[in-house]
């Protein structure tokens, strides 16, 4: 079926829904690389106009990627909430945009509709929204998750401490971790990207992070972001796994390029939940998965089925939400300028991703970041950080001075998180905030309330570091 719109007397025709979806996106170098982008600004707006008239029913019944060829398409249909969909199925996308932004659609309403909305619908409505719309709509929805603490409550802003080291040096990892803890960071997770993908290395890092958490009795989680099979192998050898990490994408073939499929994710999740039961200790919930995503990943694996990168990103969230995750973040600026050319495109993508994730029910965070070959800088990164904090993003990354010395890109810093908590009056996760208070550590930059306690924490840390030497 073809779609068309007439703009100031000029008629634009789009061959099918896939083409319409691509042309209706804001400018992205990745869509241009794939040959899917609008060829001029008039065509872009004409596509948005035509898209605004498409109903949610039509999108549901015209899958962009054939379910016979792709298990993600099948998952999306299998998890669709047909009952709740009755409330919105008749709406056109234009009406759906108005519905979401209207005061009548309160948080409870939007929560009720999470699984009535497919990823393709979330992507389509994002194409009709301005950056400010994306912020306003997302700010209505808090998606809360629980593991050893509670993430995502209104009034909180979490942070992953990301203490990466170019050669996985344990002492170096600990130092970056402690720097973060003393800035009040680390409630989302203490999560290391290892430089080497070996079970020994991953196991050693898992052990030392767990020791920090248990010795200092920190209400948080640890994670080593290696391939899912490496983490599970380490777990088999007796290493403690709090959160099971995996990068995911929006098509079966793109996931295959990461070396994963849906059955593996389901099995891994079950095994980690069982492992938590056996380990004992206090677990507040069964949210045990940590997923990372990013626009452009399917195209870079040549697994995009001629679908635009925004829609495929939404489909990655369709994968993530089937496994009830604790954390999900888009690594928005990591992929490089051939997919998101500059600070403007990265900003747009970050706001889109966060909105779509929240609309689909995910505890959405964002790695606000850029590489040195993208036309972006710390100023554009600062801007997106502030915008996403205003939008109610669950968590960001925290790295010493935003410089990831292992992955060679810039994200957000411990300082940045302190600044956002101060600017917006936000606290860490409640359990973690209590721990910080008990140890005299400030999270908003105000003077430490109890320097004596802070010092005794430092003494404990020195013991830990001695043990690592």
């Amino acid at each position, binding site marked *: 079926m073809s779609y068309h719109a007439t703009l100031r007397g000029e008629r634009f025709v789009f061959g099918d829904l896939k083409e319409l979806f691509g042309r209706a996106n804001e400018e992205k170098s990745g869509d241009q690389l794939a040959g899917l982008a609008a060829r001029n600004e008039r065509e872009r707006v004409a596509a948005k106009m035509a898209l605004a008239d498409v109903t949610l029913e039509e999108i549901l019944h015209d899958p962009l990627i054939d379910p016979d060829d792709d298990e993600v398409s099948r998952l999306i249909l299998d998890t669709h909430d047909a009952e709740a969909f009755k409330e919105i199925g008749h709406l056109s996308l234009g009406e759906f945009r108005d519905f979401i932004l209207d005061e009548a659609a309160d948080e409870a309403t939007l929560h009720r509709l999470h699984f009535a909305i497919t990823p393709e619908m979330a992507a389509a409505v994002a194409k009709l929204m301005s950056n400010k719309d994306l912020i306003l709509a997302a700010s209505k929805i808090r998606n809360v998750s629980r593991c050893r603490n509670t993430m995502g409550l209104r009034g909180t802003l979490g942070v992953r401490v990301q203490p990466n080291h170019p050669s996985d040096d344990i002492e170096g990892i600990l130092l970056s971790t*402690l720097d973060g803890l003393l800035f009040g960071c680390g409630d989302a997770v203490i999560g290391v990207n290892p430089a080497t993908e070996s079970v020994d290395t991953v196991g050693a890092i898992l*052990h030392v992070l767990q*020791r920090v958490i248990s010795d200092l009795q920190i209400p948080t989680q640890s994670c080593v972001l290696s391939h899912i099979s490496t983490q599970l192998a380490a777990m088999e050898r007796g290493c403690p796994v709090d959160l099971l990490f995996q990068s995911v994408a929006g098509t079966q073939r793109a996931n295959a390029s990461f070396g994963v499929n849906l059955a593996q994710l389901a099995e891994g999740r079950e095994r980690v939940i069982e492992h938590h039961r056996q380990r004992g200790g206090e677990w507040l919930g069964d949210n045990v998965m940590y997923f990372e995503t990013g626009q452009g990943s399917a195209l870079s694996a040549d697994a995009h089925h001629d679908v635009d990168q925004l829609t495929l990103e939404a489909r990655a969230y369709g994968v993530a939400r089937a496994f009830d995750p604790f954390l999900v973040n888009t690594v928005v600026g990591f992929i490089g300028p051939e997919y998101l050319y500059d600070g403007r495109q990265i900003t747009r993508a970050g706001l889109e991703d966060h909105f779509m994730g929240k609309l689909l029910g995910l505890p959405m965070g964002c790695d606000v970041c850029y590489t*040195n070959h993208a036309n972006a800088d710390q100023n554009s990164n600062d801007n997106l950080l502030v915008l996403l904090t205003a939008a109610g993003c669950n968590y960001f990354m925290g790295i010493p001075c935003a410089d990831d*010395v292992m992955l*060679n890109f810039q994200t957000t810093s411990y300082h940045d998180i302190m600044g956002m908590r101060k600017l917006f009056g936000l606290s860490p996760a409640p359990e973690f905030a209590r721990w910080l208070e008990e140890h005299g550590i400030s999270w908003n930059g105000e003077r430490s309330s109890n320097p004596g306690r802070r010092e005794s924490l430092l003494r404990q840390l020195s013991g830990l570091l001695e043990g690592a030497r």
Partner: protein
Amino acid sequence: MSEESPGELPKPFDLNSKGDIIPEWLLRLKDSTPARVFVGRAGPAYRTTSHLELRADHAAARDAVHADVDITRDFDQAFARQYDLFQVHSRARTKQEYLLRPDLGRSLSEEAKEELRSRREPRTDLQIVIGDGLSATAVIRQVPVLLPLVFNEAKARGLRVGFPFLVRHCRVGVLNDVGEILQPDIVLLLIGERPGLVTAESLSAYLAYQPRTGHTDAQRNLISNIHSRGVLPEDAARRILALATQMRERKLSGVEVKEELPSIPLSKPPLLDSP
């Protein structure tokens, strides 16, 4: 500062007079990571020193990405003459096109193909190619040191080395075109890495055995992080030739070929006694 812990810690070091006391023993450990830990703060922001250091490192990285390398301008002319260096282009015509179209950087322009065909030698064991990649600065800094070392090591092993040349706007996939046209046993590509803030001068060496159209990273081997604070050029040259020799003996390259490195003992045993 509290008085409750006399003498147990070294004298504390107050970074900003705001109660963020970092003891000296902790600061002494900073060398264990290149990460910018314990830098203090100005309110919830960086101190001016940190802020400007970050800007300076980013500026070096950005300039390295956007710099061009030119043989006559950027290399010592005695060096360029000694190796009879010349330069060709990929299909990417500008830096912007190069950044936006990875496919164009992976193949040689028609002019480049002509030039290589006209210079083709009958039998070459090792063909060295230099590519600007994402850091022209890395090429300008590392290649004049590394190239002679690789040449000498190759000669010492009795290898016939082809004429080296530079590809501008080059990506790693250019290996395939070079392999198709010149048909050497091994193609070695010395290419500038995407700069980080720690260094903008890091070079990678990619090797492939008889690369042909359609080959991917799975058929290539890589020695990365070649710079003065990473893998030193002398070590890189030895490792490159060891890999090349192994590839020629086994007539393949890629995931099945592993570098034989002396095992690096863990300086600190991992902690294995946690719950």
